[in-house]
C-alpha cells in the first residue's frame, strides 16, 4: 500500500520536474514586465514622486559582503539547517525533533539575513522559532506518548524506495536551481528603496502628496510599503484566513461533550 503511494508520488515529482525544467530553460531573461493596471488620476498624484536612484557603487557586495568569512558563515548555516532537518526526520523522541526544527529555523533566519531580508529574518525567529514551535511543544506535551515505531513504510524495500525518491527529487531540484542565471548587477548590494513616511497637503492647491524617504532594501519600512501598496488584497485575505484558522482550530480541538459521545475520555478532556 505504502509502496503504491511512494510510486505515485515519485511519478508526480518526475512529472512536475519534467514540466518545470523546460519552462525554466525557455524563460526569456530580461523580458519587460507588464506595466500593470492603469492608475486613476487621483491615485497617480498620490504616487510617490521619487528622485532618480543614485548609481550603485560598483560591486560593493563583493568587497563588503562575500569572501572568506561570508563563505564560512554560509557553510556553518547550511550545515546547521541540513543537520537540524535530518535530526527532525530521524529522531524517535518528539521533543528532540522539535529542537532540531528550532535549529533549522534559526539557520533559515540567518540565511535571510545573508540575503538582506532583515525583516523576514526577525519574523522567522518570532513566528516560527517562537510561536509555531511553542505550539508544537504544547501538543507534544498533550499527547505525551512515545512513538510506537519511528519509521513508516513497512519493510526495507519501502524505506529504500522512499529514500531513492527523496534523493532523486534532491538531484533534480539541484540540477534545475543550479542552472538559474542571475541577472546582471545581481551581486551588488541592493540599493535603498523609497518608502512612504507620510502625507503632506499642499496649502494652496489642496493636493495631497506622499512623502518618501530612502530606506534599506528588505527593512521593515521597505517591506511594509511594498506590502500595503502592491499586495494589500492578499494581506487582507490572509487576515481573514487567520481568523478562520483561529476559530476553526478552537472548534476542532474543543473536547467532545460526554452526552454526545461515549468515546470521550474524561482523563484526556479534563
Amino acid at each position, binding site marked *: 500500500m505504502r509502496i503504491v503511494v*511512494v510510486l505515485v*508520488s515519485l511519478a508526480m515529482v518526475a512529472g512536475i520536474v519534467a514540466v518545470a525544467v523546460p519552462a525554466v530553460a525557455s524563460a526569456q531573461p530580461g523580458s519587460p514586465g507588464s506595466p500593470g493596471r492603469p492608475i486613476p488620476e487621483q491615485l497617480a498624484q498620490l504616487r510617490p514622486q521619487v528622485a532618480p536612484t543614485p548609481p550603485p557603487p560598483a560591486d560593493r557586495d563583493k568587497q563588503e559582503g562575500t569572501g572568506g568569512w*561570508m*563563505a564560512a558563515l*554560509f557553510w556553518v548555516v547550511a550545515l546547521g*539547517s541540513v543537520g537540524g*532537518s535530518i535530526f*527532525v*526526520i530521524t529522531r524517535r523522541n518528539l521533543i528532540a525533533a522539535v529542537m532540531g526544527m528550532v535549529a*533549522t*529555523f534559526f539557520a*533559515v533566519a540567518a*540565511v*535571510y539575513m545573508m*540575503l538582506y*531580508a532583515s525583516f523576514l529574518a526577525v*519574523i522567522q525567529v518570532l*513566528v516560527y522559532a517562537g510561536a*509555531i514551535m511553542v505550539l*508544537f511543544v504544547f*501538543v*507534544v506535551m498533550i*499527547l505525551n*506518548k512515545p512513538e510506537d*515505531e*519511528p*519509521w*513508516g*513504510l513497512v519493510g526495507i524495500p519501502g*524505506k529504500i524506495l*522512499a529514500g531513492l525518491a*527523496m534523493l532523486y*527529487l*534532491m538531484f533534480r*531540484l*539541484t540540477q*534545475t*536551481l543550479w542552472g538559474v542565471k*542571475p*541577472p546582471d548587477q*545581481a*551581486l551588488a548590494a*541592493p*540599493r535603498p*528603496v523609497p518608502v512612504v513616511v507620510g502625507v503632506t497637503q499642499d496649502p494652496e492647491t489642496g493636493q495631497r502628496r506622499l512623502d518618501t524617504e530612502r530606506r534599506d532594501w528588505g527593512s521593515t519600512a*521597505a*517591506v511594509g510599503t511594498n506590502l500595503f501598496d502592491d499586495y494589500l488584497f492578499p494581506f487582507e485575505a*490572509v487576515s481573514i*484566513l*487567520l481568523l478562520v*484558522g483561529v476559530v*476553526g*482550530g*478552537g472548534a*476542532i*480541538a474543543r473536547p467532545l461533550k460526554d452526552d454526545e459521545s461515549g*468515546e*470521550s*475520555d474524561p482523563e*484526556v478532556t479534563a
Partner: protein
Amino acid sequence: MTGLLLDIGYGHFLVLAAVLFAIGVGGVLLRRNALIVMMSIELMLNAANMTIVTFARMHGDLGGHSLALIVIAVAAAEVAVGLAIVVAVFRGRRHVDIDRLNTLRY
C-alpha cells in the same frame, strides 16, 4: 573546487533550499507520526520561502518578501488547524499513527 567553497552565489542558497525541501519530502514519506509529518511540511514551506527570498534578492524585487510573509502567515494558520486536528484525533483514538488513520470517520 575552492571557488565553489568560497564564492557563495545564489546557486548555493537555491541548492540549500532544494536539499531542505527534499529532506522534508523524505520526512513525509518515511515517518508515521502525524506530528513529525507536520514538521516536515513546515520544513518544505521554509525551503520554498528561502527560494522566494533568494529570487527576490536576485531580481531586487521586494514583492518576494511580501509573498514570503504571506506564506509564513498561511503556514501559521495551517499549523493551528492541523495541530487541532491531531489533538482531536488523539482524543478519539489514542494514537496519531498515520498508517492506522486510514478512515475518515471513527
